[in-house]
């Protein structure tokens, strides 16, 4: 390698190792970012993911504006922010200013996300949503980026169940279902049209392999004694134009096979065929006696493969199957609830699904019926879910700092546009109470005393909180050897 490494001057060597040179170039903004095509947008809104490096500086240098760039950054803005975090879009511009803005939004969001101990899992299909099997994106069978040549060869042949190709998350071709018409036209004219002859060669090889297989099987049927290795395989050069024409005509009738071939040639991302003509029930119309290689197993077929690694670098945990320990109540069955913000209530100017902000990420309420959902239950005695979470249905101006709710997050995954989707679970009142008590928002003991001192217990606890119930699942002091038969002892 000494020959390839050119000798450079000491200044050049120094510059190569400098921090300015080690700044990565900014990545592309979110694809399919259609907000630019709308009338209502904000340039300064926090983007779905960071595109620039975050830079920080020691406090002494920050006081004089020295951030290591061409000129000192203005003190008025940079010294007043809580966190010394900055993203520099241009080190110098034509206007002789350094273009920068605060980067605390993404940086602090990352920090908050790490505090959640969340692991990223492969997306779960909608029909499995109720009882999903969560697979980490870091599992060996899932986490590979480029198809190895051996894998590609395997993909050419008959499909095997252990084919890992369908499980990968990175494809060289686009995800057709996520393209607009204009993008698709451009892709066809720019990328695909130039590869016609290449595709014909691909078809030749394919046809040659098919012919070899057919001949082998026919010979095997006729004469069992002939060894198959003795017969030479059909080569791609031996395929005549007429054969190829015939084969192409056949393919035009078999749309599914054609799609399979094209997607293998272009390495297209798998497309969900649940609603299309390629749905399993419809296939018999085309080729009744044919075995089809479906890409149904790809977890990214429904919503598209992610543009980054499916963990987006936000978390490197493989699982959430660990127990949290509480100093008083011992090991907890569930993870600590997360205090979330009700960003959009259900009934506003535009009635829509409420949006919950969990540590800076907007999440939908659970799709199944939970305490978040709007329906009244059949039983009239239960606490109506409409009032269970204050501020969920209507904006509550009396709440200082906005309405909050404690939530449980099941899993996270990255969608095709690079956004993080958090899947929320139904609330667990006991876990909420434990967490509230930990952060000092709820006093179990005072609550219990108050309950006991009231002559007539209330039927319902206002504002959606559950009563204190000493004989519940979480542990108590006597159970863990702390002594005392009642709460008064400690």
């Amino acid at each position, binding site marked *: 390698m000494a020959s390839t490494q050119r000798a450079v001057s000491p*200044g050049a060597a*120094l510059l190569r190792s400098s921090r300015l040179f080690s700044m990565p170039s900014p990545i592309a903004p979110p694809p399919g970012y259609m907000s630019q095509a709308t009338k209502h947008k904000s340039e300064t809104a926090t983007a779905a993911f960071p595109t620039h490096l975050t830079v920080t500086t020691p406090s002494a240098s920050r006081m004089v504006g*020295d951030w290591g760039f*061409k000129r*000192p950054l203005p003190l008025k803005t940079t010294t007043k922010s809580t966190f010394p975090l900055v993203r520099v879009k241009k*080190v110098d*511009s*034509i206007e*002789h200013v350094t273009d920068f803005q605060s980067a605390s939004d993404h940086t602090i969001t990352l920090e908050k996300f790490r505090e959640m101990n969340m692991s990223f899992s492969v997306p779960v299909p909608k029909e499995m949503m109720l009882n999903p099997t969560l697979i980490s994106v870091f599992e060996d069978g899932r986490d590979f980026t480029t198809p190895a040549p051996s894998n590609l060869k395997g993909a050419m042949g008959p499909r095997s169940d252990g084919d890992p190709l369908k499980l990968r998350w990175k494809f060289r071709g686009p995800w057709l279902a996520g393209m607009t018409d204009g993008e698709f036209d451009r892709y066809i004219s720019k990328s695909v049209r130039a590869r016609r002859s290449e595709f014909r060669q691909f078809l030749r090889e394919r046809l040659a392999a098919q012919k070899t297989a057919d001949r082998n099987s026919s010979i095997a049927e006729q004469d069992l004694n002939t060894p198959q290795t003795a017969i030479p395989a059909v080569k791609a050069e031996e395929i005549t134009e007429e054969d190829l024409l015939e084969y192409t005509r056949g393919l035009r009738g078999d749309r599914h096979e054609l799609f399979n071939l094209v997607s293998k040639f272009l390495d297209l991302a798998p497309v969900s065929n649940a609603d299309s003509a390629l749905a399993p029930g419809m296939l018999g119309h085309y080729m009744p006696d044919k075995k089809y290689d479906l890409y149904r197993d790809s977890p990214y077929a429904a919503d598209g493969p992610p543009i980054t690694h499916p963990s987006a670098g936000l978390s490197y945990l493989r699982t959430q199957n660990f127990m949290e320990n509480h100093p008083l109540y011992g090991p907890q069955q569930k993870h600590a609830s997360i205090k979330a913000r009700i960003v959009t209530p259900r009934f506003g100017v535009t009635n829509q699904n409420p949006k919950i902000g969990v540590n800076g990420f907007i999440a939908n309420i659970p799709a199944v019926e939970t305490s978040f959902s709007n329906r009244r239950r059949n039983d009239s005695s239960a606490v109506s879910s409409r009032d269970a979470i204050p501020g969920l249905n209507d904006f509550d101006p009396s709440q200082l700092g906005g309405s909050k709710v404690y939530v449980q997050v099941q899993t996270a995954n990255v969608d095709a546009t690079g956004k993080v989707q958090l899947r929320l679970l139904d609330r667990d009142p006991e876990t909420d109470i434990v967490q509230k008590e930990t952060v000092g928002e709820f006093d179990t003991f005072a609550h219990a005393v108050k309950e006991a001192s009231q002559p007539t217990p209330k039927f319902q606890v206002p504002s959606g909180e559950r009563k204190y119930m000493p004989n519940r699942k979480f542990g108590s002091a006597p159970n863990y050897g702390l002594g005392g038969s009642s709460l008064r002892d400690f």
Partner: protein
Amino acid sequence: MIIREFGVRHGRKVLAAAAPLRRGQQQCLRALSTETSGTPVATADPAVEAALQTNPENPSPVPSLFARDWETAQQLRRNLMPVGTKVEHRYSPNDVFRNPPGPKDVTLELLMASQAHMGHHASVWNPANARYIFGIREGIHIISLEQTAAHLRRAARVVEEVAYHGGLILFVGTRPGQTQIVTQAARLAKACHLFTKWTPGTITNSDKILPGIPVEIVDELDRPVGPAFNQHLMDRRALVPDLVVCLNPLENFTMLRECSQANVPTIGIIDTNTEPTWVTYAIPANDDSLRCLAVIGSVLGRAGEQGQKRRMEDAKNGKVTWETPSEIKQFMEIQQKRARWSKRAAEEEAAATSGGGGPNGQSSTTPPKSSDRSYGRTPSTNRDGTPIFHADEALAELQMEVDLVNAEEDVSPQLRNTPRRGD
């Protein structure tokens, strides 16, 4: 007592490592050890015990415990100094002002750390700077560090020699934030500084801009020569600097133009968008970063300081590194002539009073404007009868003070001028 506990924990090993235990150390070791005290005494401070045991005959009831404790602590500090974490020097933005780097400290690392390599946006460059540019990164031109270092060393050499030859140096930095840099460089190099707007015409039209600017004449050891030259100073025009160092040439084009008209050499920090031919000695570097400017300013200031130091040493050894300006030479010759004439006139008058009237032609040669002043009392001529002006070599180290209002008193000991403006 934290020190003592720490000593108990760590001190024994350290003390054991020292080969011969001196008396103080032994005592210290005993004070530290937990075994010598035996049974714990209620009031047992080991230091007290040691004091009582060493001086049993001392009747003083209150031994000097503070001194003893202090000595013990010092001893411990000496012995325990190599133990534990070493606190290394970390970078602080004030380092460049507390301990300014000199020309010997110029390294590529220092220049890179002070952002000297960052030029301007690639589209606003001046192609004359192509030879200083290393490449493009992050959309900006990168200035070659080697070029910067070489040019900075050359400029430092220029400043040093000008200071050595008694020249008048002016540091100019008129952008906000450059005040401290400029004043520090001027203080080091015993030079002048300017951190406000350059009044156009200060050099080319100094008779109007700087009328009656107070100046002073000093000798080779920078001592003022007294009122002997007051007559000359009254007629004297304002001074022109011998070297101008400009931190931001882009905003000071007028000044650089005047300097070039007056044949004053200039040193300037040339960023990639600046025309390098505006200055005589260009230093290709980033002119926006205050950190870079502080480094360059302090290097040049240190260079000037070295030049001044060398000049003073030579002056003490009797070597004068500069020549007396021609106007002062001329003035001194006239003064000597006048002294001779007045002496002769006095002698003739004395002879006339003794013998008769003197010749009238002599009094007519005396210029009428100097008639009210007696130059015979100038110390230079009065020290002895010989014309000592050449031996004295009075320096016309005339300081031009551009902005006296903001100048500090100790910028240069030679500045004894009164403010020119009323404010």
